[in-house]
């Protein structure tokens, strides 16, 4: 896989530079809307559409945007797409629009989108930028869906709104799952995020130690310019 090829961009966004678990970007939607897996999917896909579109647009405009005013220019581009998506959601998927609420307009200042615009799309051609946006968006969707699923299972015994763990009913004397409400509340978001980050670090570290670099199978061999300290080549 060549650097900047579409597949490389996708795997980079999903695994190597996963925006939630590795880059730790976009924490506000990650913590706030992940009370259920459905919300996670909705938020993730919404962000992905905006991310891909804005990456493409910014990459096309990258030679016209003056360096000094690039931030306002990026914001204008992102805000336009957010407005489009917001109106579409309100018109066609009102239930999702209601459950995400305030967090849709807040996508304008989502640090994943601005981060990718600044660090990737403004320096690279349109096609890789588009796939970078899709990859990052998929990585974000996957991560917050995982967080949402864990929180939903522990906090309500449900997954995607379906009751998968039968609830206890003291009145009927039925033994079952007792929802751990804290996981639906704000502290639960932090717990789950921390544990999932730790888990994926453990997994990546283990694989790197065994000599297989799961995220970067072909880096072109230029170790000097590479920042991946876990890489086998880097450790000699």
């Amino acid at each position, binding site marked *: 896989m060549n650097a900047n090829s579409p597949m490389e961009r996708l795997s980079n966004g999903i695994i190597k530079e996963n925006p939630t678990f590795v880059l730790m970007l976009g924490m506000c939607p990650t913590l706030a809307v992940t009370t259920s897996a459905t919300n996670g999917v909705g938020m993730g896909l919404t962000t992905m559409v905006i991310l891909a579109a804005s990456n493409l647009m910014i990459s096309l405009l990258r030679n016209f945007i003056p360096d000094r005013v690039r931030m306002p220019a990026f914001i204008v581009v992102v805000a336009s797409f957010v407005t489009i998506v917001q109106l579409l959601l309100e018109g066609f998927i009102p239930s999702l629009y209601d459950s995400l609420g305030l967090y849709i307009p807040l996508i304008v200042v989502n640090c994943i989108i601005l981060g990718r615009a600044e660090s990737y799309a403004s320096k690279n051609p349109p096609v890789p930028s588009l796939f970078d946006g899709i990859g990052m968006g998929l990585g974000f969707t996957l991560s917050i869906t995982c967080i949402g699923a864990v929180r939903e299972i522990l906090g309500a015994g449900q997954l995607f709104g379906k009751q998968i763990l039968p609830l206890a009913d003291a009145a009927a004397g039925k033994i079952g799952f*007792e*929802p*751990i*409400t*804290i*996981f639906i*509340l704000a*502290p639960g978001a932090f*717990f789950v995020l921390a544990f999932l980050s730790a888990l994926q670090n453990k997994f990546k570290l283990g694989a790197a130690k065994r000599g297989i670099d799961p995220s970067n199978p072909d880096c072109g061999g230029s170790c000097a310019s590479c920042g991946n300290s876990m890489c086998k080549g880097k450790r000699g």
Partner: protein
Amino acid sequence: MDQMLHVSSNPHVRDKMSTSRIMQLVVIALLPASVFGIWNFGFRALLIILVSVVSSVAFEWLYDHFMHKQNTITDYSAVVTGLLLALNMPASIPLWMPVLGSAFAIIVVKQLFGGLGQNIMNPALAGRCFLMISFAGKMTDFAVSDGFRGVVDSVTGATPLAALKDHGFTDGSVPVWDMFLGNTQGTIGETSALAILIGAVILLIFKVIDLKVPLTYIGSFSVFVILYMLFSGMGFDGNYLFSHLFGGGLMLGAWFMATDYVTTPITVKGQLVYGCCLGVLTAVFRLFGGSAEGVSYAIIFCNLLVPLIERVTRPIAFGKGGKKA
């Protein structure tokens, strides 16, 4: 050359007091409250205490074992955590809840931050708050029927504090003297101020704790409640004040949980500030907050303030920090 000087760094003089000995003393000091709780709430209270202590020690051992760390169960701190957690629960809860609470207290709050001495908040209280937030209904359900005495049923369901909160002072179903003795509803260990004070005296005699934090805590709490009474037009009412002092977890919190070494400031001035913060916050939570009880949240919140308190109250070394001439 066989007379080599032995050179070592300080300290050279060591006290007999060790971490495990301090923890053992705390366990002994908690025994009066535990025994009273068992007598008050029956066999089930004993069962909850046992489950909580055993699971705390087990989680400590498991974590050390699987993380390849030195085994730390012999320092008795897990026993104290388990015991305090049990004393903070009503006797009617299902038995898996102490297990879940101690798992959270030991693994998440204590060990993940680096074990005893590194935890940013009191593990037992954090475990209790975890359960409290998750299972508010069960954690405040004080309906117990099988006390060894059977007297307790008269006030089934509501703690004196909840009654105080709901209908002001007029309720009067529980005399202050009963609250001092512990003849009321509540969590297993908090009801009897007398039993807790006996334990506190044991700790004071062996110099495990000193009076600074508990007294500033209880003192500032009383001052705040008195001010509240005067300014809310209630007028001074000794009964109201003592109901607040002996009701709920204030005594247990002030003597056993606010004095936890790890989560208390080390400077003298800092301890006084810490005690005042605790008192005021507890009073604010109780008088203006949504629930009847505020001790555990106040202590946990002040635990988090400790690094800041220590920073502003750090004593100035001799010869430094004065005004420049």
